[in-house]
């Protein structure tokens, strides 16, 4: 039993000396890595994600053409030795644009999850641990934000704040934080009355210590799963926004605005649409598979509690 487990049998000893054993067979790390390594499909997903993150990091150093360099003579060229994935309507190299798009998509995915996890956990922890007063106010705010369709809220935020990468991350996060807070709060509520929490309180542990050490660490499993599943949702939402011409706009390449561009010459030059679409779909599938695997590894009995969440970004 480690802190990562959903504790069913509270061990009084842990309260006095919560020693965390090294990565044994039950540890978070151990359970996840075993599941990932056992299934080839999951392993492939994990490798794909590693490759995507790696190429997003090193893309400026790769021998690719400038993704924004235009050329009249190279307009709408099909895939060839010179332009492996072809060129778009302005003669820009699609391979280069897809690779640079990876950078944007992953930055948004990770940025949104980081912000949402931070604020969502904070709100969930405060409103789940304390009752009344501030907690009620926080939950009211969460309810208000939940009344907005996430995509419409993001569209308005991007319009109000102006188009940029940071804006997009913030705009998407505003719709995700309340949903994250809901899940976090539910997890915290389930833990806060457990005997070992009461025990820690009786032993005179300070409130912050109980909140972080005893409550939050034991409620962390569903939150980790949620984080993995929110990455693809955020990537999809960013793609939707840039497809609609909002958020990150031309000439910066994103998968969404590339597809929007290709749409106009769909019949004549399908490769404009095909390659960025494939990039989105493969990335999202990989993250979804990995997220499901992590969920199964952490708790095979969990229902798909994150299901309503994963669509938040998606459409």
């Amino acid at each position, binding site marked *: 039993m480690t802190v990562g487990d959903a504790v069913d049998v509270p061990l009084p000893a842990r309260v006095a000396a919560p020693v965390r054993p090294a990565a044994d067979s039950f540890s978070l790390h151990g359970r996840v890595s075993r599941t990932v390594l056992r299934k080839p499909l999951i392993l492939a997903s994990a490798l794909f994600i590693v490759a995507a993150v790696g190429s997003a990091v090193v893309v400026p150093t790769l021998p690719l053409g400038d993704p924004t360099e235009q050329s009249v003579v190279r307009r709408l060229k099909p895939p060839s030795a010179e332009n492996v994935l072809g060129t778009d309507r302005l003669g820009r190299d699609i391979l280069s644009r897809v690779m640079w798009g990876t950078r944007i998509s992953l930055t948004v995915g990770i940025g949104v999850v980081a912000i949402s996890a931070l604020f969502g956990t904070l709100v969930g922890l405060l409103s789940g641990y304390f009752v009344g007063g501030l907690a009620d106010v926080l939950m009211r705010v969460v309810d208000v934000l939940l009344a907005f369709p996430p995509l419409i809220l993001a569209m308005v935020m991007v319009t109000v704040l102006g188009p940029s990468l940071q804006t997009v991350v913030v705009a998407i996060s505003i719709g995700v934080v309340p949903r994250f807070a809901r899940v976090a709060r539910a997890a915290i509520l389930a833990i806060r009355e457990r005997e070992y929490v009461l025990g820690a309180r009786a032993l005179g542990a300070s409130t912050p210590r109980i909140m972080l050490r005893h409550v939050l660490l034991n409620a962390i499993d569903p939150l980790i799963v949620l984080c993995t599943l929110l990455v693809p949702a955020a990537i999809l939402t960013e793609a939707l926004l840039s497809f609609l011409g909002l958020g990150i706009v031309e000439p910066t390449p994103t998968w969404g605005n590339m597809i929007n561009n290709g*749409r106009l010459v769909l019949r004549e030059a399908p490769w404009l649409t095909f390659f960025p679409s494939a990039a989105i779909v493969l990335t999202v599938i990989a993250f979804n598979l990995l997220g499901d695997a992590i969920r199964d590894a952490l708790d095979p009995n969990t229902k798909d509690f994150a299901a309503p969440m994963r669509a938040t970004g998606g459409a």
Partner: protein
Amino acid sequence: MRRLFERLVQLVPTTVGALVLVFALMRIVPGDPAAAMLGTNATPQSVADLRSQLGLDRPLYQQFVDYFLGLAQLDLGRSLALRTPVSTLLWQALGPTLLLTLGGTLVSVVVGVPLGIVAALWRGSWADYVASVGALLGISIPVFVWGVLLLLTFSLQWPLLPSAGAGADPWEVVRALILPSLATGFFQVGLVARITRSSLLSVLAHDYVRTARAKGLGPQAVIGNHALRNGLIPVLTVIGLNLGTLLGGAVVAETVFTRPGLGRLMLDAISARDYPVIQGVVVVSVLFVVVLNLLVDVLYSAVDPRVRA
């Protein structure tokens, strides 16, 4: 009934809070919205005129009161670009979007629920495998990719269905609705199928299902009358929770299929910096979510006697 009333009362502060937030959002635009709307060659006089037309020259509390008084009379101001009342524009756009949202929901239920049932009943079989792959693809392929694929196949390659517009006569309306509904609905199919599967599996493990089997009821009666009735309740919740998302999907599908509706209205308003219209669309979409959640709640208590208390 009491429950319904309580829910209604609960919804009031949420809705009012959301409407206040919309008001605030529209006023934190950096810089002067009037100047932003008129562009670079605006004279100070025209900016001042627009400001007074928008009511931006009045004190904030006055604007706030006007906003709520207007809302109470369904008056959301006038569009700056089109000079028509925002409420008229919204009214025209709402119909096609509601139809599309309905169509999308229908697709997700008609495809997703049977998929989930098959996967649960033949758990671990190839049918379960196909269903889970289908669900994964559904969740992972965005609305506009579905849209572009469908458009390419059924409209450009084989011109069976229209590629744009919402249709004039009923037959055309239905034809124009098919592809956008599929694109909007497919995304939710995976979700609905997964929930149906997991919920049905947990229901099938209950004692009352075993009792039903033990007393000799056929599989049809056991599944249809006993398991499905309870198994589908979480599906209802998920559909309800996701109606706002589906509305977002409809907005995207409207762009792909050049359909009139709230999405088109919103995007046109955004590119024209037509703030009263943007505000109007957001207000309508919030009311949409709130009202439909209430409806799902009512349905909920109709299906599940336990929550009727």
